[in-house]
């Protein structure tokens, strides 16, 4: 039996029928064709599927699609506004804070959720916010630098 749900994603209202066992990640990728969020483990261990739900960074592989009912979701595709990049996206490019780019959408969304609730985070708070986001390429330092730089711009 499918459930009928309504939610907002990247500012757009969506109405969908979803299977009860479908994950939010699968719904976003398969039903909405928003493939920015990635599946790295499907078990809440890597953060590559991170999206923002009602202001909080969540592992979308660990949340059921039906739970999205009534919620407001932001994915990496919703970060840039009218072709203007978010400060985080700019600073990730400037700091070479991405290599293969596979962790990048998740990393950006964890960072975005942090800056939404705390525009002036300390280095410790930044590290805490991305503690669940694995990156095999960069060594993390440049990612922390990029988030710091974006936070400075915010202020």
């Amino acid at each position, binding site marked *: 039996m499918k459930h009928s749900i309504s939610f907002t994603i990247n500012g757009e209202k969506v109405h969908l029928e979803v299977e009860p066992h479908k994950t939010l990640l699968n719904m976003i990728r398969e039903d909405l064709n928003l493939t920015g969020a990635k599946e790295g483990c499907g078990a809440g261990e890597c953060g590559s599927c991170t999206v923002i739900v009602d202001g909080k960074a969540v592992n979308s592989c660990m949340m059921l699609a039906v739970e999205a009912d009534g919620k407001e979701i932001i994915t990496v595709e919703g970060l840039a506004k009218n072709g203007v990049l978010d400060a985080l996206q700019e600073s990730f490019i400037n700091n070479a804070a991405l290599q293969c780019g*596979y962790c990048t959408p998740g990393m950006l969304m964890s960072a975005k959720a942090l800056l939404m609730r705390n525009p002036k985070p300390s280095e410790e708070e930044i590290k805490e916010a991305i503690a669940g986001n694995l990156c095999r*390429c960069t060594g993390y330092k440049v990612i922390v630098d990029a988030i710091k730089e974006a936070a400075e711009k915010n202020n």
Partner: protein
Amino acid sequence: MYKYVGKDVKRVDGLDKVTGYTKYVDDIKMPGMLYAKIKKSPYAHAKIRKIDTSKAEALEGVKAVITGADVPNRVGLYLEDKTFLATDKVRFIGEPVAAVAAVTPEIAEQAVELIEVEYEELPSVFTAMDAIKPDAPLVHENLGEYYHGPIFFPKPGTNISNHYKIRKGDVEKGFAEADYIMENEFYVPHIQHAPIENHSVIALTEPSGKVTVWSACQSPYAVRKALSVAFNLPLHKVRVISPAVGGGFGGKAGTTLEGITIPLSQKCVGKPVKLTFTREEDMICSFVRQGCLARIKTGVKKDGRIVAEENTFYWEGGAYTEYGVNISRAGGYASTGPYDIPNVKADSYCVYTNQPVGGPYRGFGMSEIHFAIEQNLDMVATQMGMDPVEFRKINAIKEGGHTVTGQQLYNVGITKCIEAVEKDIEWGKKSEPSGPNKVRGKGIACMYKAPSMPNNVASSAVIKINEDGTANLLVTAMDIGQGSNTVLAQIAAEELTIPVEKISVVTGDTDITPYEWQTVASRITYCAGNAVKKAAQDAKEQMLKLASIALGLPAEYLEFKDEHVVSKIYPDRKISIASLALGLEMPDGSGVHGPIIGRGSFIPPNVRNTDKETGQGDKPVAFWTFGAQAVEIEIDTETGQIEVIKVAAAYDVGKAINPQLCKAQIEGGIVQGIGSALLEQQIMDKGRVLNPNFVDYKIPAVSDAPEMIVRIVEVPEETGPYGARGVGEPAMVPTAPAIANAVYDALGIRINSLPLSAEKVLKAIKDSQK
């Protein structure tokens, strides 16, 4: 003096990646797509008696089922020892034995469950030392019949698939002259590449029989070749597209899932078949870094000169060593590390075991052997009462010095690297621990590495000049995160004087982009970089001829400047690249030449075979990259936990085409090195992987990243583009031995195996107190 080379040009793939626009294979959806799943072996070693697929085939929604009988051809890059699905027997737990394509992944999964396989279990071997015993069960009885490259030496009738030898000078005499001799054994376990993107492939068979695969792969052309052998297809009927690679580290260098998806797609012509591994499958069924047991014996004179070294490496190659044989070869020809040692005997054995398949892993062979070499060096230095930094400076290869194969080297930057890290880590200065029960230590390790590739591997590039003065650069060098698209665009820009943003880089499609052997071995900036440079020069030569006609000046009086061909003497006499792009329009309205297309081909010059018996040769590799790392660590003596506080790294990259991206490579390598040093090990029980997930197999997270000081040394490599050498892999090689040496500095305890987990360190502390 350069305008684009040596500059921190921002990544050309940055925008697509930060917007989530980049499409990796698993992001691609096609109409009518089918989904595949594999049936895996539960046994480490067993005969396949019978496979019954009838129930799976009868399930609604199942479109194709295949077994080993459908893919009987043996393939392999260096040694043709594998089939894509097990045929006569299985050789490791997790080996694919059958596969299904169905309309949904769920149905495919159910169908896999319905496949019945009857096995007859066989005795297995799980360590290299067991596998080389004369009575060991053979993993490959037919090794003698397998086709292999001429630079490999399998021993039929044993589990040894390659034996690489070095015999240099007189090692007996060397040890007889030595005042100190140090001999130890070290072990490096199997680890995972763990890119965040799991393996994924889509295959489509057209009615003509032509096969296209979209594969997250580092080496489209090498993969195309293997697939053509496997499926008896001519090369023009195999098209390999690599849309984007979400981290490779070697794990996506050879064939992966293409060999399973293709035969499925051949049974459902016109329908694309996708197979994406789960994280668990990725950790069990794909390449791993093989384990290595190393015995190192070093003989030193009182004055600190190493006069003899005898090293033996046993590589636990796993069930198939089609790629692993080359890792053992690399371990052999680099077997002493970056030191000039007159008398050397080395033996490097690649050994079959009933374990996951060993394959190339960032810096293959080098991380493993340097873990052993660099510790043994410190141990003998300690015995002699000599400072480890001093000891390395004495023995490091100097200008005109010799490698272990007898190759004479010039433009060697290793001493500069040692000096840089010595300064940056404040060698010799003790810093205060952060609390009680904490101790600090410093350690250093050096490294060298050459691209581990056959002598004559080729690269090529095509540059098309467009009529508005922009350009398309076509290469099959893959940007797997290292930044090659940006660096190659910078090289093209430098030569053509066209800005980077006016060059678009097209990669990874064997029907469109020109030949590249493989994106491995830290060879792309060097090899593909040279090809791009030549392609740009070719385009320039064509344009020069036309400009010479147009301007009425001899070509030698013309030069390229800011998107124009300009007179060296009268700078106002010039013609734009744009107006030459399609050929030259003559005053009478006729045209000459036609479109400008630059072609560049490159093979590393004069790389030759070594002698089979002695391993000696004057140029067995294209170039050597040298580097050093020094670390400061703090150990909690109550928990055994090691914290890496600071890492100083220095590499002689010849010329950093893009210093920012070069440093980024080194930082990423350091942290991956820390993972292998402290956290990572594929835990196995009789061939069964016990930790195939990120909870039990931890890779470094942000909290594991230390302070990093990265220094770039630039002693130009004569044959490199602008002097450049590769550095992607060298970045992780010295990290683990430097940490192990720091553990000794802090505790006075030697730990001879990786990882240096808290548990192991704590046990070592307790044992030392007994």
